[in-house]
């Protein structure tokens, strides 16, 4: 499995990225890469999995269809999460000065790679 390689590639290509992870919808992290020891990307993935489920429900209830992406901005970081199929999501954490647009782009590019590995 090349999950780590795909995750590392994303980090390399996105300025200001802190870490990335591939997480099951049950919150269990499949693989992760982190550049910052103080930032527990494992915990992030697990913590936000239930939020993704809630967001999916809200999207459906608002008639917006299936959820594709969730972006969370806090005082300290930005987290982008994109769905990989129905059972997984990939998360990318960025510093506040990180390149958000590039981050979204790299995540979108990585999704088919993950899907291929997971199929």
């Amino acid at each position: 499995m090349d999950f780590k390689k795909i995750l590392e590639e994303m980090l390399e290509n996105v300025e200001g990225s802190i870490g990335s992870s591939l997480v099951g919808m049950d919150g269990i992290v499949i693989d992760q890469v982190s550049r910052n020891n103080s930032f527990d990307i494992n915990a992030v993935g697990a913590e936000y999995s239930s939020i993704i489920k809630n967001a999916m429900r809200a999207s459906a209830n608002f008639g917006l269809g299936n959820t594709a992406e969730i972006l969370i901005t806090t005082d300290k970081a930005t987290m982008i999460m994109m769905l990989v199929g129905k059972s997984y999501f990939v998360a990318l954490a960025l510093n506040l000065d990180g390149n958000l647009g590039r981050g979204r782009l790299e995540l979108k590019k990585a999704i088919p790679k993950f899907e291929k590995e997971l199929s």
Partner: protein
Amino acid sequence: MAEAYRKEGSLDDAFRVCRKGLEKNPDYSNAHLVLGRIYQGQNKLDDAISEFKKVLEIDPENLMAHSLLGSLFMQKFDYKAAIDEYQAIFTLNPDDEETQKLLKVAIEKAANAPQTGSSNESKESSAEKKTDSGSMASATMAELYLKQGHLDKAVETYEELLKKDPNNAATRKKIVELKEKIAVDSFGSAPNKVESHHAPNLKTEKAKQAHLNKEKDSKFSDDDILQVMAMNRNDKVAKPSEKQDLIESPKTDMKTEVKEPEKKKSLSESQPVLPPHQFSQARIDVLKGVLAELASITGIRRCFLTSLEGISVVSVGENSNNDSLEKQILSIFKETSHSADKLHQGSLQQVLVTAETGHILLVSFAGGILVVLADHQINLGMLRLAMDGAAKKVEKVN
């Protein structure tokens, strides 16, 4: 041995052994328990009660004695005493579902018991009474859960109550308040917590006071039960037509809580919904203007500002008036905020959910949460810029 005789049906032998044992050891609680059961078997209810009470004098946490006393009091139609016993078990073991049911039945029976009610009450049909007492029992149970600090169970009970009576604004309000309290408790303090959104409300204040006192006395007193029942009697049937009379709060307060059926509104129809009192009318007017400006951006379907308690303050654009959606949105924001806090990521600024045909943007804004629903084609960069501009305008007003 006495218990063995009793189980065999040899009550006289059982009685003799018990008496003999108690002569030697009057504080032997099991002997009193068996003796009580013998009396119960002989239908000597008062003697049985007396023995079970002796058990509790020796061993106040004897669940069997409480349970047997509860059932005896129910037999004697002394529902208040039965409630005391069941709630004692409930205090010792809050997860005892059987006792929860028995307690609820006792409260219902107590509520249905003849009393010197008002003339209005006497006019109620028996069916209505049954429904109301059932609801009151549930509400009382919820309040009792609250008093013991079981907020999650209280929420569950209130939600069941709301299913039966979806228009009960008071119940809905309590659920929102409790969920807020649970969220606050679970992560220390809520983000951008607003002070209070409700106009003074005597009943709410009473309930809060009861809740605050729970640490002092985790066991319900007779007065507690009666107070809660009385409280629920007052607001149990908060039917829309009666709400204005029942609740001593500004009329606008109720107006916003009673949602109309789903309907669409034009962009120009800003909804003057229930202002939590920290949102003054002047502030709401400014917010309306700011939101209307936001809504004029191509691709934005709807903007609404909700207080941290889940109450709509201002809404502009397509309006579904769907209460549960607003609560869902609120819970996403709170849960995310909780997670961010747990992960030491600082306070939550915004959550953007992108779906197949649109976006939901949640932003901490003006002491509440601004929710923007937008089409998929919207330029997110422009939207963020517009949001920043809106936030600045609101800050100026503050």
